[in-house]
């Protein structure tokens, strides 16, 4: 009798697990289709608005893409005009160089990485949401991600998709207390973007809360130290190629970036002042990044009210805060769009009308900015 109960429980559990994986696979394909749909819509929109740009004009030349492709092809340089490319983190170019072995083109490899990463990110995000929410909220969370305002960057040769995937995987493994996997994923995230190292904070939060509550410390949780180790490896690269652990800071402070670390208030004030004097640019860069900052911070309070897991709020707060510690920021909107935990907070909203309105605004802006990006406007 007891054995049959155990068998029944195991069978049910197996069924649930395979159901969850089936769901994740469906989400993976849905995510890729959503990106293809956005691509077609944006390209058609661009053509209908009279632009004659071709794909070869659009993808390899956008923003920082040439720099990533250069690093993938030639790696970092210790001298010369390309020495300043050390400001870009290495994991994305490494992936591009690896995929290039199969696809024979750097730009195509980079775009394939973006599509695949977005699919995997969505699948892990689905699994993450399913840990706390019902089907409907999970679906809304995914829809929020698919309609991300600057979602066009999830199909371009930027780091956003890869980073999104690593964040989703990292948070999922942290929740599952699979510390080794969380450490490895976090290590890669810390080598992908500045914000990657911040995955350490939700891990530390979960570990500390458990340690204090249960008065136990799990040695395996020390694997999470791999996350800051990833950042240390990046600093080491700076030392090897630039002679200083913080060479990237020096390069960022001069042309063409002119960007230094400043308190949030200064960065926002500069954005506002520049936005006022540059009307067109303000629509693409400054207003979105100011508005999205306040929405993101308000979301932290909303998340606390809606009982979103606190470790997610820790990540959101650290991500938003660290992102805006810049004197002259141009990509705030893009960065906020890649903050995965904001979509968890969105999913937690109870009022469906509010959720639908937010989704509608997001989707309209997503397509609009995608078309503008294809046109070659200053969407960075």
């Amino acid at each position, binding site marked *: 009798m007891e054995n049959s109960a155990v068998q029944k429980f195991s069978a049910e559990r197996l069924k649930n697990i395979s159901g969850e994986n089936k769901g994740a696979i469906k989400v993976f394909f849905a995510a890729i289709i959503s990106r293809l749909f956005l691509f077609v819509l944006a390209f058609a929109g661009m053509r209908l608005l009279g632009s004659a740009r071709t794909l070869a004009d659009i993808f390899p030349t956008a923003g920082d893409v040439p720099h990533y492709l250069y690093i993938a092809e030639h790696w970092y340089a210790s001298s010369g005009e390309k020495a300043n490319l050390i400001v870009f983190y290495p994991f994305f170019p490494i992936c591009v160089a690896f995929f290039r072995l199969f696809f024979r083109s750097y730009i195509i490899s980079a775009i394939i990485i973006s599509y695949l990463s977005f699919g995997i990110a969505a699948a892990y995000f689905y699994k993450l949401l399913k840990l706390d929410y019902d089907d409907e909220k999970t679906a809304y969370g995914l829809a929020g991600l698919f309609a991300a305002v600057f979602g066009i960057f999830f199909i371009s040769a930027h780091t956003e998709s890869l980073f999104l995937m690593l964040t989703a995987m990292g948070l999922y493994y942290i929740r599952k207390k699979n510390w080794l996997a969380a450490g490895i994923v976090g290590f890669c995230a810390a080598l992908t973007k500045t914000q990657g190292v911040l995955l350490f904070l939700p891990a530390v939060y979960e570990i500390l809360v458990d340690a204090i509550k249960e008065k136990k410390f799990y040695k395996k949780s020390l694997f999470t130290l791999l996350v800051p180790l990833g950042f240390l490896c990046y600093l080491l690269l700076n030392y090897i190629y630039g002679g200083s652990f913080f060479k990237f800071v020096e390069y960022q402070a001069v042309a063409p970036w002119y960007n230094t670390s400043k308190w*949030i208030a200064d960065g926002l*004030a500069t954005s506002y002042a520049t936005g006022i004097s540059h009307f067109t640019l303000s629509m693409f860069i400054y207003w979105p990044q100011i508005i999205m900052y306040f929405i993101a911070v308000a979301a*932290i309070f909303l998340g606390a009210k809606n009982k979103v897991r606190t470790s997610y709020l820790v990540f959101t707060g650290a991500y938003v805060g660290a992102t805006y510690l810049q004197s002259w920021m141009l990509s705030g909107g893009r960065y906020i769009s890649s903050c995965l935990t904001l979509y968890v907070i969105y999913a937690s909203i109870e009022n469906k009308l509010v959720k639908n309105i937010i989704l509608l605004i997001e989707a309209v802006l997503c397509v609009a900015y995608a078309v503008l990006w294809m046109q070659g406007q200053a969407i960075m």
Partner: protein
Amino acid sequence: MGQFIGHMGGFFILAAAVMIVGMFFWESGIVKDKGSVAVAGKAAASAAAMGMVYYFFMAYLRNIFGGQTNFFDFGKIFTFFGLDKLLNLYQTPSFKESVSGLNMPLFIYALHFIGGLVFKQYAGTALFLNFLAAAGGAVCIGRIALELWGESASSRAVFAVLALPFAFALFTPGCFGIVFGLAACAAYALYKKKTVLYVILTIAAILTSKLGLLALLFLIPAKMSGVSEFVRKLPGLKAVKNPYIRIGTLLLVLAINGFVIMLTMGGAI
């Protein structure tokens, strides 16, 4: 407008950070009693709200008395009580000046270090830390009053302290808020019979400002039962049935405070 947006942005993210730290204490079980958490939250929120009112009133008055300036130009707003000199000291500390007047070196050097870490935002950091310390002090006073006289007396005690004339000084980038916070924590430690903690906090308060010596006053044995009975019998504003008297009293307290702030900002004090 840009400065306003920027500083609001900075303030809100710091407020979110403080909230998350609070949630950590709650979730990890370090703080367990829901009722006392609510009282502490109320006291901290009251302090923050009063502080914001004082701050904007001071910034507004500076525009009247000192010519047009933006609401976050700390150097121009805080020119009273020697705060302008203190703001300079945070940037370039000198030991000789850090022990002159009411000053003591601990907070000055600590702020020089912390302000340097947060992108040389010395005045802003000092202001925020004073807000935080004043809120912490309000929580301690609320806790003592709660345990001595009950919940309604706790709110009254917090409000009474925050509405005292010159209470606005707690919300300036000097070290009044810090000393207040440390002294209130010392009082709470003494009340809880944690003598070592009381000694440490009192020393910290004295090393922050000579006003910290006031924390030694807590050692004078108070006739707590007599005080307790007196405070318990004091009617709260809510107990006054006539709304005119109730609102009038509140207005009177705030008007006196506003008058003191005006005299200070106008240079009469």
